[in-house]
């Protein structure tokens, strides 16, 4: 079956989730991956959205972090204070998902500004929950498309800390969680080198060349000595994902014709 680079990205992330994971889910690809996992390989996975909804099982993908669907399918919905204190800082999250406007090779993330903080070229939304998702989740998974604008040699602002300059800098700062352990893109799967903490490619998606990879990344890419080819999405995975997306489109198109 044919599949898009977005589909293999979502499927690859979903496969790595487990029944006993407690995921702090962001909107977009992380949400698609987590809900796909719930519908396939990890039916008992716990999904938490930072709007306070714990144990959600939305029938369609949410448009925002706080859709009503998330609350009505949740086990319980708690206040923002409780969410960040008891559940995130409390160390209950096994996997926190993050995206980025800019990402560097050590998993440091910028979603704050392009350019100078005081006089930015582009003012981005800011960190939101991310600075503490990055430090309190037991592991961080990053899902994002590769591009030279976003996979950069040096990020403009440290919104969320990954491994800093690598090696033991993270643990030396007293951060006790593992940090970014997985980077899933539209082209490859990356994991940090155990020593240097630099992301290296552990699997290339079928048909992706090293040349194409380097064109989309702003630093010299390292490849694992055990480099693999990523397994394409199965028919079942694709069907479930496409069903989910179709249901989502249908549901959300209902509210598209208002006139304010």
């Amino acid at each position, binding site marked *: 079956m044919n599949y898009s680079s977005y589909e293999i990205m979502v499927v690859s992330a979903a496969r790595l989730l487990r029944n006993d994971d407690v995921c702090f889910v962001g909107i977009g690809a992380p949400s698609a991956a987590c809900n796909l996992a719930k519908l396939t390989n990890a039916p008992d996975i716990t999904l938490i959205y930072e709007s*306070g909804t714990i144990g959600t099982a939305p029938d369609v993908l949410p448009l925002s972090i706080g859709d009503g669907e998330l609350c009505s399918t949740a086990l319980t919905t708690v206040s923002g204070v409780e969410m960040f204190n008891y559940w995130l800082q409390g160390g209950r999250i096994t996997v926190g998902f993050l995206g980025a406007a800019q990402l560097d090779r050590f998993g440091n993330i910028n979603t704050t500004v392009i350019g100078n*903080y005081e006089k930015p070229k582009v003012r981005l939304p800011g960190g939101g929950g991310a600075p503490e998702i990055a430090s309190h989740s037991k592991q961080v998974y990053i899902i994002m498309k590769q591009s030279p604008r976003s996979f950069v040699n040096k990020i403009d*602002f440290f919104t969320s800390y990954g491994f800093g300059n690598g090696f033991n800098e993270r643990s030396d700062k007293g951060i006790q969680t593992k940090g970014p352990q997985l980077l899933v893109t539209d082209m490859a799967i990356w994991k940090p080198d155990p020593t240097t903490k630099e992301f290296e490619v552990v699997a290339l998606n079928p048909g992706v060349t090293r040349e194409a990879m380097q064109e989309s990344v702003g630093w010299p890419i390292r490849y694992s000595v055990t480099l693999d080819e990523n397994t394409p999405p199965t028919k079942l995975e694709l069907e479930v994902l496409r069903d989910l997306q179709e249901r989502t489109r249908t549901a959300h198109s209902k509210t598209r014709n208002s006139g304010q």
Partner: protein
Amino acid sequence: MSKFQPLSTAIKENLFSGSFVVFEGFTHLIPYAAAHETIRSGITDLTLARMTPDVIYDQMIGMGMVSKLIFSYAGNPGVGLLRRLRDAVENDWPRPLVIEEHSHAAIANSYEAGASNLPLAILRGYQGAGLKGINANIKSIECPFTGEILAAVPALRPDVAVIHAQKADSKGNVLVEGIIGVQKQAVLSARKAIVTVEEIVPELNTHPNACIIPSWAIASISIVPGGAHPSYTQGYYERDNSSYLEWDKISSDRDAFRVWMQKNVLEQGPEVFNQRVEHLRD
């Protein structure tokens, strides 16, 4: 105690130029009607705070009413960036905007500290993060038991908190349910609270541990059905996603923005919200 007031009275009697105001709501129950009434009131030089400044703050910033914004995530929820906020930060249009930026965890805890009448909140936050370096209101304390250095942020103590909720009972006790965000904390952190509700009911008749704000902690309540449109009110109407998508276009152009605000905000009143949600009711 005349808790129940027309929205225009509630805004006029409680919000003033120079006030420190928070309009809270986390994607759900955004107090649009109250924000629009504030825009119509003509006040200016507001300091605003919120975890997730979204379209209403974009509108107020674009209208030049805001001198300072304290926030943690400024986005059009599910859509993208806030273009009026960008224009203010990047180009000082229509006026410069001072920003004080935090993380969600810090702002949530700042409200909690305010509600608890503490001067500060502590959290294990901002580890390795850049905000620590550029926000003078992120300091630290040393734990006297373990020696650990923790982040400290000042409590938020707004003059006024504004929220939208499902309903009030006839005595003015308010029920907030579903995604409750930091609304209770925001209300209790503020000197005064203004609440808009979908309806008044004789009794709230709910769960013993539901999120209820007692009448005596609220300054003013206004009945504004649909008052959270285009966000949603759980149990009443759905989110109007098309409006959020449209906002991305409207807000991308200064003139289009002003024309839209004139027609849809300045020349309207709170009663228009009921019509706007008619097709979105469950």
